[in-house]
């Protein structure tokens, strides 16, 4: 592919607004286009996109590609892959950025397979190499035990998914100018072979993990479903959200939407309290952005203490009930 130019961000919206990951990707794209001296564009698909397009411009997009159709209102693996391919062929970006989200995890590999693009999944850092001809992406591999630095081929389109919270949005400005390009009639209708027949959200009580300032997370050491009642109680007292590791999810004590880590959510609270968590790299990779980490584990050699600021080497069953009782009297 020749004449590649600029960076295309695949936008995600929720309730008529851009998703935070899209703000982050636009912020990241701005940093990169400053160096390559090209444009950052944003793809928006779905319905009633005009206000979202303005939001995209204020968060750093120079150009907005719009595909407005009920076909793209809800995510579908076939229609989205088809659409993103179509827009990449029109826009010819050097780099196409998606979030490492439900959408990106599924669409990016398919789009790259169809376009012959390079691909890096779950990038946490992205820069332009010294020749300004290729991109250098850093991504955790081996469950977070190592970091790989990977360069793209000059002259070939590169597709990356980016982990949440690894890029920073710019402060939005309504004075920013941008161009809106409507591609609705230029994309053939998709062929849908995977039909969505049912959709269920898992009840997540209380605070959204990804936005929470305080998280109390319980691991395999909690032992059973009842034990999680203590975790919930502590989370409530601290004004925080409940999180977990793979083990309690596998055991069926808590829903998978609370899992934190490589295959779960990426969190960055001010305070992370890890209870009965061993500190496997696949979990730790998801909590590195936490400002302060407190760990309670009965094994003083547990790996979690290596990444914590404060440690309590004790049985949580001895400690938490006492802590909860005192907090109750102190707070009320």
């Amino acid at each position, binding site marked *: 592919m020749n004449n590649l130019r600029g960076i295309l961000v695949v936008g995600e919206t929720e309730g008529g607004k851009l998703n935070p990951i899209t703000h982050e990707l636009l912020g990241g794209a701005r940093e990169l286009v400053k160096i390559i001296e090209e444009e950052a564009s944003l793809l928006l698909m779905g319905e009633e996109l005009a206000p979202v397009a303005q939001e995209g411009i204020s968060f750093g997009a120079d150009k907005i590609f719009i595909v407005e159709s009920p076909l793209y209102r809800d995510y579908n693996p076939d229609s989205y892959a088809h659409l993103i391919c179509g827009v990449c062929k029109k826009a010819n970006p050097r780099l196409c950025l998606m979030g490492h989200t439900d959408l990106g995890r599924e669409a990016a590999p398919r789009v*790259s397979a169809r376009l012959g693009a390079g691909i890096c999944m779950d990038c946490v850092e992205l820069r332009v190499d010294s020749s300004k001809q290729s991109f250098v992406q850093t991504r955790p591999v081996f469950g977070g035990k190592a970091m790989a630095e990977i360069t793209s081929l000059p002259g*070939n389109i590169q597709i990356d998914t980016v982990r949440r919270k690894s890029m920073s949005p710019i402060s939005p400005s309504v004075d920013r100018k941008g161009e809106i390009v409507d591609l609705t009639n230029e994309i053939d209708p998709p062929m849908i072979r*995977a039909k969505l027949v049912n959709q269920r959200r898992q009840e997540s009580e209380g605070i959204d993990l990804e936005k929470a300032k305080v998280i109390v997370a319980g691991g395999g050491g909690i032992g059973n479903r009842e034990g999680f009642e203590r975790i919930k109680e502590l989370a409530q007292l601290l004004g925080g959200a409940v999180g977990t590791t793979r083990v309690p999810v596998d055991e069926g004590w808590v829903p998978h*939407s609370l899992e934190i880590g490589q*295959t779960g959510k990426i969190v960055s609270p*001010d305070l992370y309290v890890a209870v009965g968590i061993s500190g496997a790299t696949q979990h730790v990779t998801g909590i590195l952005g936490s400002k302060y980490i407190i*760990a309670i584990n009965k094994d003083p050699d547990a790996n979690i203490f290596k990444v914590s600021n404060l440690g*309590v080497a004790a049985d949580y069953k001895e400690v938490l009930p006492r802590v909860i009782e005192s907090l109750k009297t102190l707070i009320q």
Partner: protein
Amino acid sequence: MEIIVCIKQILDPDLPPAKFMVDKERNKVIPPEGIPFVINPYDALAVEAALKIKDEKGGKITVITIGDKSTEDIVRKALAMGADEGLIISDTIFEESDSFAVGYILAQGIKKIGRYDLILCGRQAADWDNGVVGSVVAEYLGIPIVTRAKDVKVVNGRVNVERVTTDGFETFELELPALITVSSELGQARLPSGWGIIKAASKEIPIWSGKEIETDISKVGKKASRNQLMRLIIPSYERRCEFITGEDLHEISAKLTSKLMERRIHE
């Protein structure tokens, strides 16, 4: 039902960080001595998903892997779990292939096998954590795909897939043939039975070369790679951990309480 499951041999993902080492000169992982490679845990679950379908509907399961002779162990493991046939695709020209090349090689192998209704892969290989190959195979074969399944059912010649999303579940219905990638939420992979192990031990496992699957050599190996690994490093996330100490659990709990009071959210 003809089911094909793609399985990969990897370094044990549960290896403790202290045992994980890299050769910085060559950007390669140094496998610790005496610790055996394992079947990618998601691929073991893909085998499990195939076996569940076979238990209910009957059919034949073929497991296929790309790798050297040592991958025989994971193929035998899948056979012992209950898969019917095993196949290794092996050639020096495949060395250092990227996800696209691996997807291409698998697709060529699958075309040579010829008959298939369902292809199952893991959601990602827990070594390089890409999660790309399944999609590439589906694109090469021109078949539909849904990723991250927790449940795969064949009903009236179609496949019903319940998959996990970040905040819930979605169910898709696809025409066969289709490719599905499997996530950890599927449950647990069954252990090989005694009889399964005995049967698997004597089973012949064919090895196909690049030529036998009609490989276009421009599509495989290092030179076909669309990305280049520049550096592989072991990061350090260590913080200085201060331990709370005290006479007894009362005192420790009290100290912890005051730390939490300092850092809680004030409304």
